[in-house]
C-alpha cells in the first residue's frame, strides 16, 4: 500500500507489523521446539514417524523451509531501509512462501497420523469399517513385525520401549516402501490449505482487533483507513476457509475417518449415534450430498468388527508372520474381532466431548462467515440486494444496540475471536477424535507414551512454561506493536550499529 500510495501511514504500520512478525517468529521457534521435543520425549514411538512416513516431510521442513525462512527473515531485517521497497517485499514474500511450505511439511506428518496414506488395505484388515488408504505401499510383514513388537512391549508396560531396543528397525524391517507417497496424502493437502487459511485469518484478525481497539479508544479515522485493506483479505479468507476448505476437510473425515465422523455428530445424533444408523439431514447433506443418507452409529462399527470372525492373533501370525509369534504371546488367543470392538468402544465415552469441540468449531465458523459477509457488502463493496440486506442488519439492527461507529470494529473482533475459537476447537476435535489411535487404524495411543513416570510436579512445570510463553508472547506482541521505534533498533542491532 505504501509503495502504491507513498502514504507514510502505511509505511509506519508496516514497520509495526514487522515488529510483531519478529516476535511471532521467535515464538514460533520456541513453541516449535516444544512440539518437536514434546513428541520425541512424551510420545517416543512417534520417533518412528520421523523415520518412516514423516521422514521426507520433516527433513525437508528443517533443511529447506525452516532454514530458508530463518535466513531470509534476517536478510530482510538487515536490508530493510537499505534496499528499495520492492526488494524488501520480494524477500518478505519468499519468507512467507517458505513459512507456508514449512506448514505444509509439518502438516503432512500430522496428516499421516490421521490418514495413513500408502498403507492400502492394511488398517482395513484389522478394522473392516475403515477404507483403503491409497496405494499398497506398505510391506505387510514389516507392519506385522512392528505391530507385534509394539503390542509385546505395551503388554509389558510401555509400547515405546520397543524403539529403544537396539536393532529395533532391523527387527521390523522395511514397512513403508515409498517414503514419497506421504507427500501426496489428500488429507495433507486439504489440511495444509485449511490450516494456513485459518492461520491467515487469526493473524489478520489479531491485527484487525488491535486497530479496532485503537479506533474505539481514539476515534481516529486513520485506524479505519489501515483496517480496510486488512479487512479485504480477512473477509475473503473467512468466506473461503469455513465454507469451501471446511467442507473439503469434512469430506476427508467422512471418507477416511468414519469412526471419528460418528463421534463428531454425537451431540446432534441423539441416541441413534449408539445404534446401527441414524438420520441427521443437515449433516448427511454436507457429508454425502443427500439429506436422507443414513449415518453410521457405533453399533454399525461393532457389527463390522464381527466380520473378522473368530480368527485369533496367533492364527493371523502363523499364517502371515510366524517369526513373530513369540512377541504376541500376550494376545495370542485374542480374536481380531474383539480387538476391533475394543477400539470402537473406547471412543464412545469421549464422543460427546469430541462432538462439543466440533460444534463449537461449526458454530464459530458460521458466525465468522456471517460477520465476513456483513463487513464485505456494507463496508468494502456494494452490490444491490446483498448490500441492502447487510446494511439493514448493520445499520438497523446492530447500530442501535452497539452504536453506529462501533459496528465495524465489533464485526472485526467477532471475526478475530471467532477464528481463534474455531481453530482451537477444530484442532481439539481432530486430535481427540482420532482416539483410540495415534496413527489411524494402526498405532494406538497407549503404544506411544513414554515409560518415564510423569509426575504432577513435572506437569505443573510444563504448564507453567506454556502459560508463561502464551502470556509473555502476547504481552511482547502488544509491547512491540505499540512502540514503532523498536524496528529501527532491531535492524541496527543486526547490522551492528548501536541501538
Amino acid at each position, binding site marked *: 500500500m505504501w509503495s502504491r500510495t507513498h502514504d507514510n501511514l502505511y509505511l509506519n504500520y508496516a514497520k509495526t507489523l514487522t515488529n510483531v512478525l519478529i516476535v511471532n517468529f521467535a515464538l514460533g521457534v520456541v513453541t516449535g*521446539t516444544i512440539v*518437536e521435543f514434546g513428541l*520425541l520425549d512424551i510420545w*517416543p514411538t512417534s520417533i*518412528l514417524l520421523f523415520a518412516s512416513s514423516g521422514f521426507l516431510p520433516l*527433513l525437508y521442513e528443517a533443511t529447506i523451509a*525452516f532454514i*530458508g525462512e530463518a535466513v531470509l527473515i534476517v536478510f530482510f531485517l538487515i536490508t530493510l531501509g537499505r534496499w528499495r521497497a520492492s526488494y524488501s517485499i520480494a524477500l518478505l514474500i519468499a519468507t512467507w512462501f517458505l513459512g507456508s511450505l514449512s506448514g505444509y511439511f509439518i502438516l503432512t506428518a500430522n496428516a499421516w497420523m490421521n490418514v495413513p496414506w500408502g498403507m492400502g488395505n492394511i488398517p482395513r484388515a484389522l478394522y473392516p469399517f475403515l477404507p483403503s488408504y491409497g496405494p499398497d505401499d506398505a510391506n505387510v510383514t514389516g507392519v506385522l513385525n512392528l505391530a507385534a513388537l509394539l503390542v509385546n512391549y505395551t503388554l509389558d508396560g510401555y509400547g515405546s520401549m520397543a524403539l529403544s*531396543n537396539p536393532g529395533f528397525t532391523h527387527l521390523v524391517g522395511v514397512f513403508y516402501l515409498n517414503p514419497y507417497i506421504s507427500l501426496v496424502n489428500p488429507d495433507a493437502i486439504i489440511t495444509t490449505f485449511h490450516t494456513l487459511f485459518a492461520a491467515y485469518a487469526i493473524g489478520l484478525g489479531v491485527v484487525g482487533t488491535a486497530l479496532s481497539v485503537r479506533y474505539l479508544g481514539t476515534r481516529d479515522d486513520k485506524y479505519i483507513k489501515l483496517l480496510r485493506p486488512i479487512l479485504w483479505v480477512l473477509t475473503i479468507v473467512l468466506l473461503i476457509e469455513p465454507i469451501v476448505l471446511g467442507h473439503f476437510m469434512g469430506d476427508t473425515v467422512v471418507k477416511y475417518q468414519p469412526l471419528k465422523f460418528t463421534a463428531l455428530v454425537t451431540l446432534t445424533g441423539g441416541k441413534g449415534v449408539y445404534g446401527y444408523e441414524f438420520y441427521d439431514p443437515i449433516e448427511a447433506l454436507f457429508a454425502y450430498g443427500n439429506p436422507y443418507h443414513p449415518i453410521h452409529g457405533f453399533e454399525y462399527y461393532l457389527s463390522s468388527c464381527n466380520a473378522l470372525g473368530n480368527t485369533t492373533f496367533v492364527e493371523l501370525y502363523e499364517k502371515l508372520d510366524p517369526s513373530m509369534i513369540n512377541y504376541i504371546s500376550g494376545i495370542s488367543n485374542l480374536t481380531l474381532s474383539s480387538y476391533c470392538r475394543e477400539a470402537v468402544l473406547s471412543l464412545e465415552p469421549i464422543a460427546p466431548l469430541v462432538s462439543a469441540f466440533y460444534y463449537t468449531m461449526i458454530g464459530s465458523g458460521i458466525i465468522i462467515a456471517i460477520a465476513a459477509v456483513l463487513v464485505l457488502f456494507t463496508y468494502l463493496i456494494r452490490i444491490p440486494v446483498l448490500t441492502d440486506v447487510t446494511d439493514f442488519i448493520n445499520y438497523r439492527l446492530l447500530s442501535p444496540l452497539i452504536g453506529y461507529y462501533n459496528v465495524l470494529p465489533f464485526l472485526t473482533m467477532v471475526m478475530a475471536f471467532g477464528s481463534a475459537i474455531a481453530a482451537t476447537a477444530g484442532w481439539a476435535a481432530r486430535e481427540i477424535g482420532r482416539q483410540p489411535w495415534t496413527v489411524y487404524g494402526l498405532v494406538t495411543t497407549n503404544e506411544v507414551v513414554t515409560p518415564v513416570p510423569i509426575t504432577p510436579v513435572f506437569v505443573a512445570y510444563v504448564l507453567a512454561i506454556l502459560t508463561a510463553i502464551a502470556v509473555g508472547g502476547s504481552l511482547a506482541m502488544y509491547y512491540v506493536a505499540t512502540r514503532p521505534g523498536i524496528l529501527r533498533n532491531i535492524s541496527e542491532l*543486526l547490522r551492528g550499529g548501536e541501538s
Partner: protein
Amino acid sequence: MSIDLFLFSLLGFTLIMHLIFVNVIIGVTVLTVAIRYTAYLRNDPYLELLARRAFRVMVIFDLFGGVWGTILTVYMAGFFPSMVAIFTRVYFYPVAIALTGILVSIPLIVMYWHLWGRISPRSHSLLGIPMAISVLLVPLGFRYLFAGLNYPIGIDGDQPSYIAALANPVYPALALHTILGGLDIGAFVLAAILATRSNMDVRGVRIALSTGMALLIPQSIAGAYYYVVLAEYDPYIVNNIAGPLLGGKPSLGFVYPLFYTAIVLVVALTIVGAIALYNAMMGFVNRPLAITAGILSELILVLMEFVNDGSRYPYLFLSGNAGIPVNELLNEAIPLPLVAIYTMIASTLIFTAIFSIVLYYGLFRRYLPETEE
C-alpha cells in the same frame, strides 16, 4: 562408501555445523555478561560498548545455531530412531533441562537486549546472570547424551534410576571440557571480529585475546582430564585417538592423524594468540594474527569434535572395546531415498552460503557505521 558410514558422517557433519555456532554462542554470551558486569562495577562506558558489540555477535550466531540444532534433531530421529528413543527414555530429565534452557534463553536474550539502557545498570547486569545460566543449561543438558554414548546406561531395556543416569562418570569431564572450550572459542572469535577493518578495536582485541589465552590453560587441563576418563571407560576411543605415538593400538587409521594435527594447531594457536596479544598490549592490532587465532580456534573445535565422535566408528554406543554398531541402530523402516538426502544436503549448503552473506553484511560490512564512540 557404505550407507552406514555415509549416514554416520552426515550426522557428524550436522553436529559439527551446529557446534561451530553453538560454541560462539556459549562463549560470547558469558563474555558479554562478564564484560557488562565489569562495566557496571567500574562505571566504564567503553566496556559497556564492548559488551554491546559482543552481544550482537551472539545474537546473529544464535539464530543459525538454533536452525542447525533443529536439523540435527530431525536427522538423528530420521536416521537413528533407536538412538533417539534411548536418549529420550534414559536422559528424559537432562533433555528437559536443555529444553528449558532453550525456552528460557530466547526471551531472556530479547529482554537483555531491549532493556539495555532502559533499566538501571545494576539490574541489567543482574539480568545477564539468568540469561547466561539458561544458555549454559543447553550444553549441560545435551552433553549427557554424548556421555551416554561413551558410557551407556539403560540400553539393556531396563529403565535406570534418574540418579544413575545423572551420575554418568564420563559426564563431568566432558561437560567441563565443553564449557571451557566454548568460552575459549567465543573469546578468540570475538577477538577476530574486533580485529577486522570495519570493527577495529584495540582494547577489545586485547581483552578478548587475553581471555582466550588465559582459558587455554584450564581448557588443556580439562582436555587431559577428559582423556584420562575416556582411557578408563572407553579404551576403544583412546586407542584410536592416541595412535602409535601415544602407545595406542588404533582400529581406525584416520583418527589419530587428525588428533595430532589438532594438537599441533593448539600449539600454533598458543603462539599466534600470544604474539597477537603482545601486539595488542603494545597498542596495535595485528589483524592477520588475531583473525588467524579465531579461525584456528574453530578449526581445532572441528577437528577435536570429529576425533571425539569419529573415533567410535563403527559403533555409536561404546562399552569398553566394543559396543552397538551404527548399522544396528540405522533406520531400516524405509528404503532411504538418497536423491532426497542429497537435495537436503544441497539445500542446507545453499542456505548456509546465503547466511554467510548475511553474516558478512551484519558483522563486517555494516558493523560500526553508526557507532556512538
